[in-house]
C-alpha cells in the first residue's frame, strides 16, 4: 500500500467499512509510515470529537405538529378504529352478542388469541422502552467490558439465568458490557453490543413473552425487534440497526448458543 491509497482507505477504516484483511493492511501502513500514522490519529480524533458533539438538529415542535397533521387521517375512519383499538370488556363481549354468529367456543378462542397478542405486544413495547431508556446517558451498561468472561459472572445472583455472552468481535459486533434491567416488572439480563454507532440490546430471561422457537420479527417506533426462544431462554434483540443486520446478529447469537460451550 502506498500513501495515496492510504489517504482514502483510512476513512473506510475509521468508518468501520473495511473487511478484516484490508483493515490490517491499512493499520500496517500506518505503523511503518509515521506521516500516515499521524494522519490516521488526527482524523480519528476529529471523528471522535464529532460523534461527541451535538450536531444533530431537533425538529421544531411546530414543524413536527404540522407534519403529523398533514398525514391525512380521515375523521370518519378514526372513530370506529378507536373503538377497535381500545375495546372495553363490555363492548367486546357486547359485539359478539349482537352482531356475530360465532359459537361461544370460537369466541373464547378468539378472545384468548387477542389477549395473548396483547401481552406479547406489551412486552415488545416494554423491551423497546428498555432499549430507549438504556440509550440515555449513563444507563447503558452496569459492567463495561469487551470481555465475555467478565460479563457472564457479573450476572450471578442478579438474575435467575446464566445469560449467554458470546464474542462476536470477528463479526464486527463489539461487546460493550452488561446491565441489569427490568421488563414486565421482572429482572432481565441485558447484554449490550455495538455495530458502528448502533447499539444492540440483547435481553435474556427465563420467561419473557410466548415461546417462539422461530425468530419473530417486529418493528416499534422505528426500532427493530427480534424475539426467539432457545435453550429454555427467551431472547429479545432490539436495535436501530437495519433489519438485515439485526437478523445477522440474531443468527450469530443463535448459532453460538447451539455450539457446545467451549472449554473456557
Amino acid at each position, binding site marked *: 500500500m502506498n500513501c495515496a491509497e492510504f489517504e482514502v482507505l483510512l476513512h*473506510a477504516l475509521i468508518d468501520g467499512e473495511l473487511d478484516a484483511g484490508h483493515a490490517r493492511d491499512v493499520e500496517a501502513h500506518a505503523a511503518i509510515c509515521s506521516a500516515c500514522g499521524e494522519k490516521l490519529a488526527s482524523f480519528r*480524533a476529529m471523528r471522535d470529537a464529532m460523534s*461527541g458533539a451535538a*450536531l444533530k*438538529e431537533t425538529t*421544531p415542535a411546530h414543524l413536527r405538529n404540522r407534519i*403529523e397533521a*398533514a398525514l391525512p387521517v380521515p375523521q370518519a*375512519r378514526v372513530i370506529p378504529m378507536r373503538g377497535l383499538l381500545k375495546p372495553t370488556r363490555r363492548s367486546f363481549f357486547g359485539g359478539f352478542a349482537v352482531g356475530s354468529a360465532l359459537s361461544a367456543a370460537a369466541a373464547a378462542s378468539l378472545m384468548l388469541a387477542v389477549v395473548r397478542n396483547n401481552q406479547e405486544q406489551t412486552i415488545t413495547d416494554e423491551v423497546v422502552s428498555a432499549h430507549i431508556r438504556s440509550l440515555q446517558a449513563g444507563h447503558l451498561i452496569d459492567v463495561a467490558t469487551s470481555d465475555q468472561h467478565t460479563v457472564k459472572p457479573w450476572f450471578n445472583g442478579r438474575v435467575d439465568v446464566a445469560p449467554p455472552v458470546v464474542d462476536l468481535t470477528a463479526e464486527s459486533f463489539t461487546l460493550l458490557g452488561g446491565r441489569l434491567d427490568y421488563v414486565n416488572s421482572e429482572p432481565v439480563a441485558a447484554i449490550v453490543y455495538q455495530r458502528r454507532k448502533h447499539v444492540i440490546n440483547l435481553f435474556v430471561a427465563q420467561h419473557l413473552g410466548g415461546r417462539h422457537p422461530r425468530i419473530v420479527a417486529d418493528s416499534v417506533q*422505528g426500532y427493530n425487534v427480534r424475539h426467539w426462544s432457545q435453550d429454555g431462554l427467551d431472547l429479545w434483540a432490539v436495535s436501530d440497526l437495519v433489519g438485515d443486520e439485526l437478523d445477522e446478529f440474531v443468527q450469530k447469537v443463535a448459532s453460538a448458543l447451539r455450539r457446545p460451550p467451549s472449554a473456557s
Partner: protein
Amino acid sequence: MASDAVAEQERMRRFRDAALPHLDDVYTLARYLMRNAADAEDAVQECYLRAIRHFDSYRGPAMKPWLLAILRNVCNAEFARRSKEELPTDYSQEESLAEEMPMWQEPQASPEKVMLRQQDSATIRRLVAELPAPFREAIVLREINDLSYQEIAEVTGVPVGTVMSRLARARAMLRSAWNTAEASTAKPGSATASGITL
C-alpha cells in the same frame, strides 16, 4: 368501503411508524443542505408529503436512506428552481445557526463542561455548514445521519468509490478549517479545555 377505510388507516399507521422516527434525521440533513431554518422546514414538509404519496412503491430495505434521498431531491429541485429565477441564495440566517441549537442534555456533565461542549458543537456545525455542497452532504450523511457508504451511495446516486473520495476530501477540508478555527479562538488556559488536538 369499510375495508378500504381500514386498509387506508393501516397504511397510514405503517407510514407513521416507519417514517416519523426519522424526522430529526431528515430535518438535520435539510438544515445542512438548505442552510437556513425556514427553507429546511419547507423541504422537510415537502419530503414527507412526497414520501406518503410514494409509500406504496417503497420496498425497503431501510426507511431512513429512502427518506433522505427524497429530501435531497426536494432540496436539489429547490436549488434548480432558484438558479432559474436567478435569485441569490440568502445565507444571512446562517449566523443564527449557533443560537438555535437545541439544548444539549447531559445530566452527568458539570455546567461548565456543558458550556464548552456547546461551544464546540456550534463551531463544528459552522465548519460543516461552510463546506462545499457535495462534501458537506457526504460528511453529514456519514457522521450525523450515520449511514453506511453503500447507503450514502444510494442516497446521492454516485458509486461507493466516489463516496469514499468525497469523504476523504470533506474530512481533509474540515480538518484544516478546524485547525484554523482552533488557532484563532485559542486563548491561554482555554486551549486545552476542548480536549481536541488535531
